[in-house]
């Protein structure tokens, strides 16, 4: 089975993605991760204004069969939260790189973006 891995993102080994952006970036989980989890039924996210540190837990995603912590790929401040996931957590399954995004952050100066996996490196990891 092949999974979508967009080239315009960077990835954590724990399967979160981040837009490869200059100032603000969206974060979500990969197609591979949503498939491994199965039907997502609940997503717990931080609030706007919260500071995230690269590599730290920032929330939880739950499927019918499993609970999984979410790790932030980058450091920054949360500027938006995808409220649609409260009522439609299945968006994470249906469109993990689009409508299933989780938070948007304003990147810190030393965001850690350069330490992340490229799309090619991430593809290699999940193959």
């Amino acid at each position, binding site marked *: 089975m092949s999974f979508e891995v967009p080239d315009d993102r960077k990835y954590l080994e724990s399967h979160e993605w981040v837009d490869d952006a200059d100032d603000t970036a969206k974060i979500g989980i990969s197609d591979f991760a949503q498939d491994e989890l199965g039907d997502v039924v609940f997503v717990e996210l931080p609030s706007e204004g919260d500071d995230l540190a690269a590599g730290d837990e920032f929330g939880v995603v739950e499927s*019918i069969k499993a609970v999984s912590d979410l790790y932030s790929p980058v450091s920054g401040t949360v500027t938006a939260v995808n409220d649609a996931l409260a009522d439609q957590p299945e968006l994470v399954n249906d469109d993990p790189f689009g409508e299933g995004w989780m938070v948007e952050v304003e990147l810190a100066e030393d965001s850690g973006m350069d330490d992340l996996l490229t799309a090619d490196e991430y593809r290699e990891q999940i193959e």
Partner: protein
Amino acid sequence: MTLRKPPLRDVHAAEGATFTEFGGWDMPVEFDSIKVEHRAVRDEAGIFDVSHMGQIEVSGPDADALMQKLTTNDVSELGHGDSHYSMITDEEGTILDDTVVYRLPADHDAEFLFVPNAGHDEQMHQRWTDHRDEWDLDATVHNATDEYCMYAIQGPDAPNLVNSAAEGSVSDISKFEGRYVEFAGADCWTARTGYTGEDGFEVIVPTDSAEAVWDLFDCQPCGLGSRDTLRMEQGFLLSGQDFDADENPRNPYEAGVGWTVKLDTEFVGRDALEQASEEGVEEEFVGIKLVDRGVPRHGYDITDTDDHVIGEVTSGTMSPTLSEPIALGYVPTDSSDPGTVVRVVVRGQSKKAKIASTPFLSDDQ
């Protein structure tokens, strides 16, 4: 430990199933998606490979006596082709396993077939033979688990599907009745029983016909994931999770299945259960619905509104039918009335919840 495999393990893998260890067996947990499979069973039909369930045959002149003394329900009420749900208890009245007991047709070699849970077949075979010898009864106990597959075809369309697949009609088989029916030329024990709350059948198939019979059913293949969400919506017990002789010892009255205990029969654990029946129990198995957002899971604490721990979730999920978080667990009897406000501690956060009646689904769901 080497996992036991259902005979169609490789066929399921080729269909894209993912697998999980359950009771020492390597079983399909998901073919498509738990939600899709769950919905198929509630709306149409699905087929489960439940070959991990044990198959113990009991025969001989004292088969009735042996079954009566080792199960809590009254086997003398069973005519040929009838079945019932029953408990297997120890001297203290603690549930060792729950099972369906079938009295087979008169022309069959064995008098009874009963179905222990996954991984319990050897233990129950041993229990039956040890007690037979101790009580000097003339009965043969045969562990046939590896000789058969077991399929559950469940859902509102299941009767039509089973009728179409069978060589002969099964429509006149009533709930908890069974008979031998040919499928793909194989003689299969076919009973109107199941574990989803839907109409449907369980078909016990000789292993050499496993694939031919599986292929007769053109409906959604389902794994243990949806089997679990379906049974939770009904409030049905899962052995090893909602009760466990070692880790969560419970008697049938606590577990809400006191109706399977017939105190006018003699069986192992009867005296202890008579006492429990007279004195009442301190804790009861209840349904719980979360009011706050979150997903309750096995092992989470249940507290009162003052945050005192009063119990533990034994099973929990997000109900695919209701889209609501539901749980099962034991609480003190003075907190067990439906509507009682309690709390469930979900990953360190106390969430408001209410005791709920089971089944969680009403008839029109």
